[in-house]
């Protein structure tokens, strides 16, 4: 009977010319409630390939179409601004000795400075020369010579970067890359656009970096599945689910980007102390925070710092974020703030 009703509705939809997007949204985000409380609440979904990844956006509200269109424009604008490879981007020009001014860069530099200072240098935007040396910026990454790593390390370090009037001025051989916070900053900007256009519910995934606006249309929390680092491509093998509203949920893991050489795996999250892929005993770090930029930066920083330092940092700032760590031994460690919001079929430990 339910099927026939659905089919009837489908046909009424087809005849009355309602878009197929609306149908898909309802299917993807359908609730257990049989009654849809927000009838007449328009929705819009867009997807875009940008910042070297796949992004999808969904918003509910009377101005949902306009809001997602504005969000897409903002993604394109920030991609063009922050790309390290695009000769016209501000970051490229800064890295090549030009002076360039941008409010976004000013903001990102402030955040980068805070993250660098508060994470003991684990988050560092000046590691770009090392990323290039390892070949993570191109198609053919490979393990560099130790002597080259040593030479390149000398060029890195946020404390060595000259900053004049909030504008970074990388010198010979130095280079900056906001890749560790760019997507989090972008999703944060999209939340501001959603607010501006009176969006009632929304969710974005920028290459797996998730940020939720409000609750789901039915008032329940967004259920965010945390990828199992041992089976990153199998979305049915999740490590757990975090239910949130108005939060960014962002994971860093060695499984995201890596290459194998002589049987050993090398991932793309570089430890600024030795110039090698971070080996702190963690498989992944998921940060939950109301601030997308912070969540993005901290996911990288905590992955580099390891569990003890990450928990010490969390105990100093429990109001700013919560996190889920998965260790090399497959322990799942969840900070106390997520006690009511985390679920998993596997064993996990609440950290206080």
């Amino acid at each position, binding site marked *: 009977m339910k099927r026939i009703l659905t089919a009837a509705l489908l046909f009424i939809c087809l005849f009355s010319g309602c878009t197929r997007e609306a149908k898909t949204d309802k299917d993807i985000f359908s609730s257990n409630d049989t009654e849809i409380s927000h009838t007449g609440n328009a929705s819009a979904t867009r997807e875009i390939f940008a910042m070297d990844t796949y992004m999808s956006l969904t918003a509910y509200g009377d101005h949902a179409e306009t809001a997602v269109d504005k969000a897409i424009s903002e993604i394109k604008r920030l991609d063009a601004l922050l790309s390290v490879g695009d000769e016209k981007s501000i970051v490229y020009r800064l890295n090549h000795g030009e002076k360039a001014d941008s409010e976004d860069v000013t903001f990102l530099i402030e955040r980068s400075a805070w993250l660098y200072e508060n994470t003991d240098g684990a988050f560092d935007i000046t590691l770009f020369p090392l990323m290039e040396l390892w070949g993570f910026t191109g198609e053919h990454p490979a393990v560099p010579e130790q002597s080259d790593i040593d030479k390149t390390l000398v060029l890195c370090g946020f404390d060595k970067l000259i900053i004049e009037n909030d504008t970074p001025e990388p010198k010979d051989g130095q280079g900056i890359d906001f890749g560790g916070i760019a997507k989090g900053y972008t999703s944060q900007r999209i939340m501001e656009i959603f607010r501006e256009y009176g969006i009632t519910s929304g*969710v974005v995934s920028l290459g797996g970096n998730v940020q939720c606006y409000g609750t789901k249309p039915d008032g329940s929390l967004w259920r965010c599945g945390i990828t199992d680092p041992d089976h990153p491509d199998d979305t049915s093998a999740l490590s757990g689910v975090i239910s949130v509203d108005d939060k960014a949920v962002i994971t860093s893991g060695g499984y995201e980007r890596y290459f194998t050489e002589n049987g050993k795996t090398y991932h793309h999250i570089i430890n600024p102390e030795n110039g090698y892929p971070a080996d702190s005993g963690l498989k992944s770090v998921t940060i939950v925070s109301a601030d997308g930029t912070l969540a993005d930066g901290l996911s990288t920083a905590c992955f580099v710092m390891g569990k003890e330092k990450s928990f010490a940092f969390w105990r100093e700032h429990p109001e700013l974020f919560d996190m889920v760590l998965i260790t090399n031994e497959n322990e799942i460690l969840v900070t106390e703030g997520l006690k009511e919001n985390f679920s998993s079929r596997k064993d996990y430990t609440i950290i206080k």
Partner: protein
Amino acid sequence: MILLISFVLIGAVILAAVLMSSQGGAYVEIRVDGKLYGSYSLSQNQTVDINGIGGQNRLIIENGRAYMQEADCPDKLCVKQGNISMKGQSIICLPHKVVAEIVADDGANENNSVDIIVK
């Protein structure tokens, strides 16, 4: 006239109901650069050749699962992504801007389902 329209409508509804029950509701939606390329029932074994941006992908639907069999993209990550069968799962080929996503899974696993995957 009204009678005729009602008749056509009822016929269409019955046809749709029969079609949907035989499909079990789940299908693979393929999008290229954000535009719908096609929807394919998961319950019907078939091969879908996809003209992506700058290259080709071949999706196989077999026994209720879908996987990318081959692609002429440089990294072949889409081929390595394996099978998908549950609502919300997707295979993404970044170079060709191809997304294959499972949609409308009739709500059987509603309680376990997630809204979005963080990775």
